[in-house]
């Protein structure tokens, strides 16, 4: 049994957050600080022939202007990934070619934000407009080439062909799809489309920089990846890594949108050149237009199956709109296959093909779900179609055919992140229980039976239920690394320093709980410092559902090392040998059965090691790389109402049963699931990017975009069903991403149940729903 793990411990920063005490990037200001504004391209495709900033420079209060005139042309990727990045080096901080509405033109640093904004308008730019490429389905045979002779190249040896607008390509096959599909008696082939989306983290992207007392550059930033920021800023701004310190303070949500290095190099260059503090905060419009998005996708599923429903062949072909730059293009694409296809692992002939193509539209990037969300829309519906066609109960079908503990899928090895994947056997899954418990809680069988009958006949408002089973991963195996440092203090408290990045997810708290469990010390005794490249050890950052699983294991190893040291010193003080003692309640005590009971407190142990004998600092560091990426699993159930007059779909009930291994903190785990589900529902029903015929985003405000509010949400019930993952800390796996994958397929399946029609394109707007109902 656990003492500090699997407990709803309050977030260690909780009270400070809700009393407004915590500081976020924009809350930091410094004397003589400059304010930076960035000019973004208004054209989707254009060549700058001349940029004249002389008039702007004359405005009193303008201090520095950065453009291609004075910033070196250095290719890089804005994707905050491990090095070498699997994303192509196709981006220049300030280039001459504008590739989407929102691309960087130049930046002004001035004494006030108002002056900087006025100066932007005084910069004279001569553009040569080029024809934009706005339809991603036409990209790879278009005459318009987005990255023409600009030197863009892949940093790792992968297929890349800028001359054909191909940013990424992935292929994998197990068995012989073509043969099996050809021989199949029953076949389904369908196309699915999912839309662009903005992360809408409530805090906009920001960076504040200054020079410290010894001439080093400090960057405070809204980043999920402080160590990657340090490395990428060093490369782009040509400042040695040793001269850069990156700090992530509190951050107002990320969801992948802040795994991108966009503002930091600009603030850094201003500060490095002027030796003055600089602040750059994006407006909401800039966040929508210029930062990164969820990729738009077309997926084509081909499936061959027997009369009893057994699928013999499945092919997923994905076309990804990478936008103007290929940030995360390759890895999101491979995840579209690697996070879906292993779920029904008994399909013998599996094929994945994918292509990411450039367009003159906003850039995709990392977004919670990371390709899996895009692919599950079709995957979850295809399975439903097979079940409907063969009279299978879909819940029983998933129970029977889903991957189980002790099983594997050839896809794990075939599809990695920019290289071959890692073969893996599943060692934990409660998916069957999730399906069982979730369907009971939801009353799946009863409701499905009711709505399958002629319940809806002749009614304006039709009801339906749908479900989907899901998986994701936990960290990137054999690539991501996390580390932790712990030292003991003389009152028996500990410093826990981790490079990991708490985005509001509560990872600072969860990691303290893990250390607390090992050392049998209350969570409050840990002073947690995170995400400061000077004071915390390396961590790849908060992405790929990794922190609890990966950093958690580093913290566990580190705490175990500390425990050994404490036991050793404790035994020395108590005058016994080390295996005669154990740890309990902040003390070292003699084990039961030892003749005369002795004990010594942690505080006394630390004091002894500081001041008395064999003096040393009790401290340890540990690193962790995972040999695998154990998937969390989930079963989602949804009930909807379709108003056949207006086309409005209303979600009236949502149940998600989730296997995240051991939930280290059940309340925080539930919160991750609830947040992801609501984002998933609004993505399914409203979120989209609408563009003008010139490629300008039209709905670039919260209001027009349509982020859900408290009154939009249906009753949502999250049920956590433990499994025990032996490679994770105290059995934990991930939970942050998986649950955003469910609403798209589950709602679409419920729509079919209600109306007998299928939705192949998201979001399911009333207009589109009416078209589908009529068609």
């Amino acid at each position: 049994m656990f003492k500090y793990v699997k407990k709803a411990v309050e977030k260690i920063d909780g009270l400070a957050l809700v009393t407004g005490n915590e500081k976020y990037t924009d809350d930091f200001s410094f004397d003589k600080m400059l304010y930076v504004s960035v000019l973004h391209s208004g054209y989707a495709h254009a060549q700058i022939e001349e940029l004249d900033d002389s008039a702007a420079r004359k405005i009193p209060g303008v201090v520095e202007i950065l453009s291609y005139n004075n910033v070196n042309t250095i290719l890089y990727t804005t994707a905050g990934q491990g090095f070498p990045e699997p994303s192509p080096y196709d981006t220049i901080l300030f280039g001459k070619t504008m590739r989407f509405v929102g691309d960087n033109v130049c930046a002004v640093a001035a004494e006030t934000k108002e002056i900087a904004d006025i100066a932007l308008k005084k910069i004279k730019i001569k553009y040569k407009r080029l024809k934009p490429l706005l339809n991603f389905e036409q990209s790879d045979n278009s005459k318009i080439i987005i990255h023409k002779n600009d030197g863009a190249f892949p940093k790792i040896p992968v297929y890349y062909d800028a001359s054909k607008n191909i940013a990424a390509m992935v292929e994998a096959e197990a068995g012989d799809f073509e043969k099996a599909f050809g021989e199949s008696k029953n076949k389904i082939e369908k196309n699915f489309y999912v839309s662009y989306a903005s992360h809408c983290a409530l805090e906009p992207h920001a960076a504040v920089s200054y020079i410290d007392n010894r001439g080093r550059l400090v960057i405070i930033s809204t980043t999920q990846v402080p160590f990657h920021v340090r490395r990428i800023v060093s490369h782009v701004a040509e400042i040695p890594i040793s001269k850069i310190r990156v700090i992530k303070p509190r951050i107002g949500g990320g969801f992948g949108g802040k795994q991108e290095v966009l503002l930091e190099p600009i603030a850094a260059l201003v500060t490095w050149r002027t030796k003055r503090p600089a602040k750059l905060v994006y407006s909401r419009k800039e966040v929508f237009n210029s930062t990164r998005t969820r990729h738009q996708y077309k997926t084509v599923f081909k499936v061959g199956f027997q009369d009893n429903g057994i699928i013999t062949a499945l092919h997923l072909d994905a076309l990804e709109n990478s936008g103007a730059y290929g940030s995360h293009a390759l890895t999101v694409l491979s995840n579209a296959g690697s996070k879906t296809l292993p779920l029904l692992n008994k399909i013998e002939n599996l094929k994945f093909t994918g292509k990411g193509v450039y367009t003159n539209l906003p850039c995709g990037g990392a977004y919670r779900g990371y390709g899996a969300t895009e692919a599950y829309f079709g995957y979850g519906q295809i399975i439903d179609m097979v079940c409907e066609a063969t009279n299978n109960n879909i819940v029983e079908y998933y129970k029977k055919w889903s991957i189980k503990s002790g099983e594997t899928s050839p896809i794990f090895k075939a599809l990695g992140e920019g290289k071959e994947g890692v073969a893996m056997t599943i060692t934990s899954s409660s998916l069957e229980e999730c399906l069982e418990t979730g369907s009971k809680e939801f009353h799946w069988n009863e409701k499905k039976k009711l709505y399958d009958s002629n319940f809806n006949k002749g009614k304006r408002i039709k009801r339906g239920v749908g479900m989907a089973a899901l998986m994701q991963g936990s960290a990137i195996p054999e690539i991501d690394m996390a580390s932790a440092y712990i030292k003991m203090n003389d009152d028996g408290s500990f410093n826990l320093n981790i490079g990991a990045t708490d985005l509001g997810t509560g990872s600072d708290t969860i990691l303290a709980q893990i250390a607390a469990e090992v050392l049998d010390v209350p969570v409050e005794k840990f002073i947690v410092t995170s995400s400061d490249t000077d004071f915390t050890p390396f961590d790849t950052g908060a992405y790929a559902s990794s922190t609890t699983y990966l950093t958690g294991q580093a913290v566990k190893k580190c705490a175990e090392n500390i425990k050994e040291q404490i036991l050793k010193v404790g035994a020395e003080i108590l005058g016994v040998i080390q295996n005669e003692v154990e740890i309990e309640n902040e003390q070292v005590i003699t084990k039961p059965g030892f003749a005369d009971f002795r004990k010594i407190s942690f505080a006394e142990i630390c004091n002894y090691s500081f001041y008395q004998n064999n003096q040393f600092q009790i401290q340890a560091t540990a690193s962790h790389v995972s040999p695998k990426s154990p998937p969390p699993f989930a079963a989602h159930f949804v009930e909807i109402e379709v108003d056949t007059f207006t086309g409005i779909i209303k979600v009236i009930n949502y149940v998600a049963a989730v296997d995240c291994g051991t939930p280290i903190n059940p309340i925080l785990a539930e919160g991750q699931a609830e947040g992801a589900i609501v984002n998933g529902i609004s993505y399914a029903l409203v979120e989209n990017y609408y563009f003008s015929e010139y490629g300008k985003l039209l709905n670039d405000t919260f209001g027009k975009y349509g982020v859900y509010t408290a009154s939009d949400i249906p009753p949502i019930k999250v049920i956590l069903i433990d499994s025990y993952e032996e490679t994770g800390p105290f059995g934990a796996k991930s939970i942050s991403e998986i649950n955003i994958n469910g609403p798209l397929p589950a709602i679409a399946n419920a729509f079919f149940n209600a109306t007998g029609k299928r939705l192949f394109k998201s979001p399911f707007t009333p207009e589109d729903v009416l078209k589908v109902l009529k068609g």
Partner: protein
Amino acid sequence: MKIKFNINSKIEELEIRPDATLLNVLRDNGFTEVKCGCSEGECGACIVLIDDKTVNSCQVLAMSAASKKIKTVKGIGTLHNPHLLQKIFASTGADQCGFCSPGMVLSAYSLLKENPNPTEKEIAEALDGNLCRCTGYVKIIEAVRRTAQIMNENLISRE
């Protein structure tokens, strides 16, 4: 020009520009607990109370609030002396990134003053102007409901 404001029951004389929004004046003068999520009146992160009414501070001129009582989230409770709502928000998991929390807490505070026994629907409606992208609102609504319940059971003042 210099203007006197009543912020969290203290008189502050602040240098402002006539066209400055209340949000900018507050943030520029150290009241960074008031957050900016959009500057467009659409997210509620910048909510403050003006004479006990919730207002998006990005949408009003600072001047217009000069003679009125302004309250930020620190005005209802602080780290060392938190309001019950703040305690329950923290213990219920109603705060993830916390960026929406100052505005959210103030909207909830204002609701409970007017309606000590709100239904879930009334809570959701009262929080309709506050966006939160992290929590999916489930635990936020729960926190407000629980706070109301505890206040009613123990006859705690809503101040």
